[in-house]
């Protein structure tokens, strides 16, 4: 079941500032804009000779990855290092859990090492939420992707990409194409686009790869790629998640590419200055043609750069909000 963060502002402190970053669900537009603005400033830091600021000096950030990832893990590590935090990364799938230790015990041990922040990636929806609520309320928790639920830093880096290339969200048409069903990126993007005021959000996929009730997100559904791409400003391609695919959702990858693969010819139906995004890793010839992935419309590598800035912004804001919350609770206890 999908957790409903919106019902309870678990991720905000008493002043409405971020203290955990679990999901974009229910976050106000002002807060999303503040994240984007802060990330803009960190982008400038990334362009300097010394790409480091002393903001989180003396803080300890622990990346806890229950699920494999290269890009997300390394950009979180780099982001924490550029904030001058001490960083350790644990691939839990290959360590204690295989010896029988529970999630609860693993995290309590890390907490005892005086970690100030956990970046958690987990195959189960709601894992980060569970940890923030029940395991380590003192530690700032950042969701690095949980099951099919959310990937909020990816969602925000996609928003930063769109804002930097298109200026704003008010008049945009954005198409999200591919495996919507298994994609936490798609969920985070739909929520963020809606909150930031994008008027035309489209999802384009075969019926078998669309979650039931996707219209609830305020999106238009297309099952034909040419129609879905017509005159859009932004195309967000999703990876076909072969490892999550079970039981005949698709006839074959070849057929998927023929109907939903983004080729130069298909892209011609979008606006002439459309940008093409992809969260990576890309499957060339499965959901996207190499000529498009490497072409002039592609901003796929810019997304990686923006991802570091977004993660720096979210980490510093959550650390700041969590510290304020702890001070507030201490003062109230006295």
């Amino acid at each position, binding site marked *: 079941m999908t957790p409903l963060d919106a019902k309870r502002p678990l991720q905000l402190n008493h002043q409405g500032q971020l203290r955990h970053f679990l999901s974009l669900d229910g976050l106000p537009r002002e807060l999303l804009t503040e994240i984007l*603005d*802060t990330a803009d*400033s960190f982008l*400038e830091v990334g362009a300097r*000779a010394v790409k480091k*600021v*002393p*903001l*989180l000096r003396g803080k300890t950030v622990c990346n806890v990855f229950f699920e494999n990832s290269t890009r997300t893990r390394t950009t979180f590590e780099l982001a924490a290092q550029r904030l001058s935090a001490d960083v350790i990364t644990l691939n839990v799938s290959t360590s204690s859990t295989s010896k029988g230790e529970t999630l609860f015990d693993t995290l309590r041990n890390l907490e005892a090492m005086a970690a100030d922040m956990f970046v958690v990636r987990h195959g189960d929806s709601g894992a980060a939420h569970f940890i923030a609520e029940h395991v380590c309320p003192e530690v700032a928790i950042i969701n690095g992707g949980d099951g099919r639920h959310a990937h909020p830093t990816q969602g925000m880096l996609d928003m930063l990409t769109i804002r930097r290339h298109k200026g704003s969200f008010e008049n945009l048409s954005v198409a999200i194409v591919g495996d919507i069903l298994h994609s936490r990126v798609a969920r985070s993007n739909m929520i963020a686009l809606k909150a930031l005021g994008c008027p035309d959000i489209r999802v384009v996929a075969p019926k078998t790869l669309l979650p039931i009730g996707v219209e609830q997100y305020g999106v238009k559904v297309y099952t034909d790629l040419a129609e879905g791409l017509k005159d859009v400003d932004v195309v967000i391609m999703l990876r076909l998640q072969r490892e999550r695919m079970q039981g005949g959702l698709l006839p074959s990858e070849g057929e998927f590419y023929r109907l939903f693969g983004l080729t130069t010819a298909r892209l011609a139906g979008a606006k002439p200055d459309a940008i093409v995004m992809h969260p990576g890793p890309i499957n060339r010839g499965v959901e996207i043609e190499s000529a498009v992935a490497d072409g002039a419309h592609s901003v796929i590598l810019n997304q990686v750069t923006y991802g570091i800035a977004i993660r720096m912004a979210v980490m510093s804001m959550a650390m700041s*909000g969590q510290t304020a919350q702890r001070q507030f609770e201490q003062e109230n206890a006295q």
Partner: protein
Amino acid sequence: MSLPNPAELIRQMALDLTASLSKRGIVEPRFIGIRTGGVWVAQALLEAMSSQSPLGTLDVSFYRDDFSQNGLHPQVRPSELPFEIEGQHLVLIDDVLMSGRTIRAALNELFDYGRPASVTLVCLLDLDAGELPISPDVVGATLSLELDERVKLSGPTPLTLELQDLSTASAAL
């Protein structure tokens, strides 16, 4: 207490700064204002000196030493330095010098861009409350305030100074 007129202070500061730079043989200084008030003072100062030099702006939010107490400033904006720092003579401009902590943060940030040849510190007001061994090379006026008093600069045009009393106006801050 009556506060000085910023426009008059800047006229004198322009003369003092020109004299100070020429005395040290600095011909092409690089001007940098600290956001937000320092940028306003810097713009007024460059105008008073009839200088066409580009103005760099510095946002020291990422370098402050009070992150653990006050957190991140929500309106942080990118620093913009349209010139090299390495080997240059810098003129660092701020509005009000109080504890010296902003200047420390600014110096730390500048050194992440390169190693300047020198840094000249210019402030509109020195409140003489130095918590750190930092004092301005060129200053408009030096004031002594009561413990609860603060000075606020509004701008950019016209620049005006206003005295605030924290003991009565704490809600407004």
